């Protein structure tokens, strides 16, 4: 079988976000005061070599910030490697995330055509697919409305429909299985299933380890930008799980309190609490416990016993909010 994707000792360094100031005046002042300081960079992908054949279904797993999505971006050609070479043969789907990239002022039809052309298709060909896309997304009756009138679920549906309509040779999926309501999710699953049956190459990034283990023959586990394991799905998932025992065991408030007591690092999880089971983020830092509601409001959390953790991955980024921690 021929190679669809080939990475040979690929490394990627990126600028760290915190030292950016996007400001010419400040940059010039800094150069004048302390001399030219090179941008601080950190390694996101570190010497990755891998090859994926046409028709392979590959899952990529790993903790947040391990470089999974970056790997997809390198395959998609959105990012170029700092060192090494990436070669891809075959047409690619776009990275489907929740509906960003649509022009809010254009109608659905215009957005579909624009998007299709961006994907490298002929305008006439895209026009021929407009109906099918609208049908699949179940948005045919509002085709002439601007996309800003769509709900986030609707635009996610539209994004998925466009990305999968043109039968790409290589399908890149980044946590898209949570698109839309339950019924639509089944429909997406069915469509992805057809890709699975066909000869398409699929690269799937997901935190849903059972789904990955069930649907992929091969799983790559990456951490810190390096490949930790590459091979049989079950083995990869097992090994990965054995290293994240701490975070995977956080299920209830007690686990959270126990974990917080055992570490000095800040602990952040997404969960629900209270009588209304409202979603929030829970943070322990320096012995203080906080509950951060969806609108960014910090509140000292008193009782955590009733917290239900919905996402067992620990979140690294502290949400913005002015509070002395």
């Amino acid at each position, binding site marked *: 079988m021929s190679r669809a994707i080939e990475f040979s000792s690929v490394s990627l360094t*990126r*600028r760290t976000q915190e030292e*950016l100031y*996007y*400001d*010419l*005046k400040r*940059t010039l002042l800094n150069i004048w005061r302390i001399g030219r300081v090179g941008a601080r960079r950190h390694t996101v992908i570190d010497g990755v070599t891998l090859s994926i054949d046409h028709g392979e279904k590959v899952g990529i797993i790993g903790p947040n910030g391990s470089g999974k999505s970056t790997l997809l*971006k390198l395959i*998609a*050609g*959105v*990012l*170029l490697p700092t060192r090494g070479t990436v070669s891809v043969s075959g047409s*690619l789907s*776009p*990275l*489907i*995330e929740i509906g*960003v*990239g649509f*022009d809010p*002022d*254009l109608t659905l039809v*215009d957005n579909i*055509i*624009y998007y299709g*052309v*961006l*994907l490298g298709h*002929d*305008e006439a060909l895209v026009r021929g697919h407009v109906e099918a896309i609208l049908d699949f997304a179940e948005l045919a009756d509002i085709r002439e409305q601007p996309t800003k009138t769509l709900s986030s679920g609707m635009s996610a549906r539209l994004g998925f429909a466009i990305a999968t309509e043109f039968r790409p040779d290589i399908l890149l999926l980044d946590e898209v299985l949570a698109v839309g309501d339950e019924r639509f999710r089944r429909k997406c699953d069915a469509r992805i299933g057809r890709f699975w049956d066909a000869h398409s190459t699929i690269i799937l990034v997901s935190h849903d380890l059972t789904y990955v283990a069930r649907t992929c023959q091969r799983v790559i586990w990456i951490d810190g930008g390096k490949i930790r394991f590459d091979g049989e799905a079950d083995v990869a998932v097992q090994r990965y799980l054995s290293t994240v025992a701490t975070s995977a065991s956080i299920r209830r408030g007690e686990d959270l309190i126990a974990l917080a007591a055992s570490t000095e690092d800040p602990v952040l999880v997404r969960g629900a609490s209270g009588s209304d089971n409202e979603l929030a983020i829970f943070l322990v830092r320096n012995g203080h416990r906080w509950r951060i509601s969806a609108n960014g409001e910090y509140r000292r959390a008193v009782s955590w016993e009733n917290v239900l953790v919905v996402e067992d991955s620990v979140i690294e980024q502290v949400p913005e909010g002015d509070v002395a921690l």
Partner: protein
Amino acid sequence: MTFVRVAAMRSIKIRYRGSILGVLWSFTNPLLMTAMYTVVFGTAFSRYYDGSIVRYLLSAFVGLTVVTFFLNSTAEALPTIVTNGALLNKIALPPAAFPLSSVAADLIQQLCTTFPAVFIIAIVVTHDPVRVALIPLAFIGLVLLTAGFSLALSALYVFFRDVSYLWGVAGFMLWMTSPLFYPAQVAPERIRVWFRINPISQQIGALRELALQQGPIHYADIGLAFGTALLAFGLGVGLFRLARRRFMDLL
């Protein structure tokens, strides 16, 4: 190329959605400005234009055609890389297409309005087929200059978000230091060198030479304007290529 075309049509659609006059709106700005300048300065400066207010009016209009196209296009192209950052993060696209399609959208508008007007003026005023035939060259120069600046500015804006303010000021200064609504003769002798260096002033000079003058053609002015435009385009492309590899970390 298909992408630039479709993207340009898309920005035109967005700009004129729901407006009855559509593309003609881009005519109103230079026309109103011409009227304003003529009312305010026409009488005072007409003696530099053989005592003819009409000649002053035409001269101001030709100058404004250049300035409004250059400043509007560059200002609109400036944020395009940043505003399309989400898209660039999803699909591998040539990023230069965004500023270029923005310039193309403006060009299409002007091709429907002010540029043909300059042609008609040239035919009526000069009666000179060589001059009229050379006018497209002046427009190509103007477009190259604008595209070069647009590429450079849109790339810089990724790194420095205060470039939009700085360009607002710098663009205005280039405009005001071009002999647009005033004749070059009113400026002090030692300042007039700047009129030959200022790229906007060069373009205005070249277009006026072709559209409004009579007698032997000053090819040097036209060549200088075109040369600067080519240089600006080359530098813009070069800067854009240099910056392109560092873009993605900041979008």
